């Protein structure tokens, strides 16, 4: 009798622990605020901070090839966006202003459009948003290199040596972007020959 009771007690404990672990495990997947928390975490599936951002070559809106590595020597913000992404649209005017403000210091934004829509639609949208930085048309391959890009916008900030200094997905305040740009600009080029 005692053994049976002990056995049942063990089973109850196992179920309780399983429910507790499950609940802790799912925390962040449900509810509005926890969704935000999960979105605001760093882009942890892509290239890590301190590593060189994977190179890619993509077509600009007027059909020219642009490589990320060709921007070495500059502080670069790689901004993954799409025309259907409302939060991306919010930060675009900020990016236009920041490109204008920091261009002379050696800062470049590379917008990577992750749309399925055609080049013309993307170009029309970029024109409407008065985009003054280079926009290229993204691909699945590049998305995979950068952690799958499961949410937009996703931004990577690269120092003058092409190393990631910060990244995040989801909309953040303009001041956060400015801080990352300043950090990227403060970096020194290790190999002078890479400077354009």
């Amino acid at each position: 009798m005692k053994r049976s009771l002990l056995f049942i007690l063990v089973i109850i404990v196992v179920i309780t622990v399983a429910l507790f672990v499950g609940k802790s495990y799912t925390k962040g997947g449900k509810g509005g605020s926890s969704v935000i928390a999960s979105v605001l975490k760093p882009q942890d599936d892509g290239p890590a901070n301190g590593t060189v951002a994977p190179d890619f070559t993509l077509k600009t809106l007027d059909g020219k090839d642009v490589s990320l590595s060709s921007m070495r020597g500059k502080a670069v913000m790689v901004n993954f966006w799409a025309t259907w992404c409302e939060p991306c649209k919010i930060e675009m005017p900020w990016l236009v202003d920041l490109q204008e403000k920091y261009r002379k210091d050696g800062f470049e934004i590379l917008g990577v459009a992750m749309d399925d829509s055609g080049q013309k639609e993307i170009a029309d949208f970029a024109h409407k948003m008065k985009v003054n930085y280079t926009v290229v048309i993204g691909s699945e391959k590049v998305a995979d290199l950068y952690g799958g890009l499961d949410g937009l916008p996703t931004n990577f900030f690269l120092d003058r040596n092409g190393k990631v200094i910060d990244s995040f997905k989801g909309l953040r305040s303009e001041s956060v972007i400015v801080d990352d740009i300043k950090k990227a600009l403060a970096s020194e080029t290790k190999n002078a020959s890479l400077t354009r």
Partner: protein
Amino acid sequence: MKKKFAMVIVLLAAAVVANVFAAAQDQSLSPAKRQFVTAAPVSTVYARSGHPGPVTFTFHIQPGYHINSNKPLMPELIPTQLKFSLPGSDMAIGRVTYPDGQLMSFAFDPSQKLSVYSGDFNVKAMVVAPPSATTGLYTVHADLKYQACDNNACYPPKTVPLAFDVKIGSAAKSGKSARPTASSPHIHN
């Protein structure tokens, strides 16, 4: 007796543990790999020539997310749309009716209203059978295309596949419903 009881308890515990971990694993998937919308099962639709069969599709959007309505307010936004794949020329889909979107603004731009669905929503359609339709039971496949966002980010467009049965009745039986008799295995009411 005690052994059987203990065995039942063990199996029950194993089932609970398996379910909890399966649910946890689904929740831990990145948003790109997760569905934000699920479709409820659809009952068999009955239609015959001159008597279209109404069908209602019920969808559930995960808490914390919203999707564009069928008529978003901006042309670049991707509308929610149900696309059908018919099994042949024995039926057609008539008017598809989407609910009006809720006009909402979100934390990323409180000044901008968007037309969205959140929570549960229904899409209604009519299944139409032409006079030449062959009677029988057909399976129709459909895809709900949507694009979800939360308060800070948007996720790539996705589709929810669904399927439902359509029973095409004989047009010759004037005044009679295409609904089969109680002996039919396809009755769902």
